[in-house]
């Protein structure tokens, strides 16, 4: 926001603190913790693989060793898996893959879905009918089934996984965006915007989109968690990024076979990272939604 001080007016405007600082100053401790957790997860995913060992290197003399075991390659902080691979290295590398896939899948699906929902709701008529029937058809097919079929047919890889996962996301955005636009379209708000000479695109972008941003944020956090789990499920079923490259889901899938043998760390470590990320993102999302709506910004606003 620009700082205003106009000589013609009664008094100069108060300097505005930066948006980020204002946001953080109203941040409850739980959200702060969530921010720290997400920052940590992202940092580890970004830089961890540079520092950790090779996630595919095997040490067949130290197979299925618990955390803090000494082995050929030094101390295995989180233990090793059934092929003697360093679990920490695999975890760090898996986090990178999983987060990247989830982020881009939600981004792609979210942008496409929101755009389609906005257009559908605003234009109405035949366009709306056509688009919403496509959504209905897709929703009639169980999402996991659709994703599994596509993942099985297409060549596995990071790109394919992103595309396939964004497919389950876009419908949610399209539906929510459309419903919100439908109710906004009839309000004075849109009428007034039209009366000022705004084009349809401008109305959607400046007047409708900011008003539905709260809901979009909420589904983004929900969908992030949803996609992260779906990605893990794909990996678990062996349909995600092909081995030996680790993903969190594949690690849990491989590890659970050894649970009965008491090798808990194979499942608990990646499981913990998945849960931590999802819970933190949800907490941030809830808080952000309140912050983004000027009406509920409350006390100090």
């Amino acid at each position, binding site marked *: *926001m620009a700082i205003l*001080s106009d000589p*013609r007016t*009664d008094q100069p405007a108060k300097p505005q603190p930066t948006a980020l600082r204002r946001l953080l100053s109203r941040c409850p401790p739980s959200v702060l913790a969530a921010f720290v957790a997400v920052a940590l997860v992202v940092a580890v995913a970004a830089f961890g693989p540079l520092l950790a060992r090779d996630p595919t290197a095997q040490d067949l003399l130290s197979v299925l060793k618990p955390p803090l075991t000494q082995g050929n390659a030094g101390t295995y902080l989180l233990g090793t898996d059934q092929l003697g691979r360093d679990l920490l290295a695999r975890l760090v590398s898996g986090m990178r893959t999983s987060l990247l896939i989830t982020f881009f899948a939600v981004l792609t699906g979210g942008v496409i879905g929101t755009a389609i929902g906005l257009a559908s709701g605003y234009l109405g008529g035949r366009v709306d009918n056509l688009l919403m029937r496509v959504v209905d058809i897709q929703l009639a097919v169980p999402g996991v089934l659709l994703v599994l079929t596509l993942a099985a047919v297409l060549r596995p890889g990071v790109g394919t996984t992103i595309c396939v996962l964004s497919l389950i996301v876009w419908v949610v955005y399209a539906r929510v965006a459309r419903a919100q636009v439908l109710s906004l379209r009839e*309000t004075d708000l849109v009428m007034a915007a039209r*009366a*000022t*000479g705004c084009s349809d695109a401008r109305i959607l972008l*400046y007047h409708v989109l900011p008003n539905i941003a709260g809901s979009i944020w909420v589904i983004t956090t929900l969908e992030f968690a949803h996609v992260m789990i779906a990605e893990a499920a794909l990996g678990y079923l062996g349909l995600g990024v092909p081995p030996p490259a680790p993903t969190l889901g594949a690690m849990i899938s491989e590890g659970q076979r050894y649970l009965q043998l008491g090798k808990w760390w194979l499942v608990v470590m990646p499981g913990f990272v998945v849960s931590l990320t999802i819970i933190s993102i949800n907490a941030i999302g809830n808080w952000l939604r309140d912050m983004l709506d*000027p009406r509920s910004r409350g006390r100090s606003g």
Partner: protein
Amino acid sequence: MERRDDRERDEVLAVEDLSVGFVQDETRTVLARVSLSIGRGETLGLVGESGCGKSTLGRAVMRLLPANATMDGRIRLLGADVLSMDERAMRRLRGGAVAMIFQNPMSALNPVLTIGRQITEALETHTGLRGRAATARAVELLHMVGISRPADRAHEYPHQLSGGMRQRAMIAMAISCDPKLLIADEPTTALDVTVQAQILDLLASLQEKLSMAMLFISHDMSAVASVADRIAVMYAGRIVEEGAAAPLLRDPAHPYTSGLLNSVPHVDGARRTRLQAIPGSVSAGSADAAGCSFRPRCGFAIARCAVETPPLADIGAGRAARCWLASADWRPAAAARSMAT
């Protein structure tokens, strides 16, 4: 049509035989051959009960009606034919040469954009102003509509302002691009009385300063009385009486106008006199029916009223009324008095 001769002057808006219908299973007529004109700097007050089509008329002028509306007739806005204009030219007109303010500023202002941002948006759409220049102009406009500390207010959101402030901000938006015509659709209805008076004063002074014409739509006779130069009274999609404000208010010629005026409470009036309500309500689709649409509620109706729709006829002194009885010397008030005795 009979009274067009003196209207060819500096016209800002001329509506000729405008009919509007809404199609939903069947067509429902909302406006039936309405004609009116507004000269430069003039204020036309458009009065009538809810549902008589006055807001529809305001919106038709800016072509803001929903997609299922059918429009017929001619609307000339600053010489341009509105109904045949393409959408792009129409957009340039909206918010530019003709602007609109709404009844409820809370729902018409964007709740997630600051007041300043909303004004600069209008400026960006129609003038070349951008960035700091636009912001400075927005602050100036807020100052012009009487908002104190405008530079601070520009950073506030609509929910942080009071009702009167919001309407002022709305007015600032509307006048931002120097409109030649301001359509005010019930601008004071949602406000309390003291604020109403302030807003009316503001509108009148801005109008003078910017020499813009105004179409003032309201069901509130006293609000219209305080701003309008001329008044058009609407009933069931038709104009039933039209004329200069003062004589029309003092001496209404149509029974409906007279009824409207009788149902307004007067502070200075005799304390114990009952207010006279007009019996019944505007019946749906009555613009389609034969005969005078006000007949079912009219105390003076004669046989002719049921079969023939009266024209908007000249009754002298630049006034016109749509009533078989109305003439230079018949007035409903006097007729009611003589009926009582």
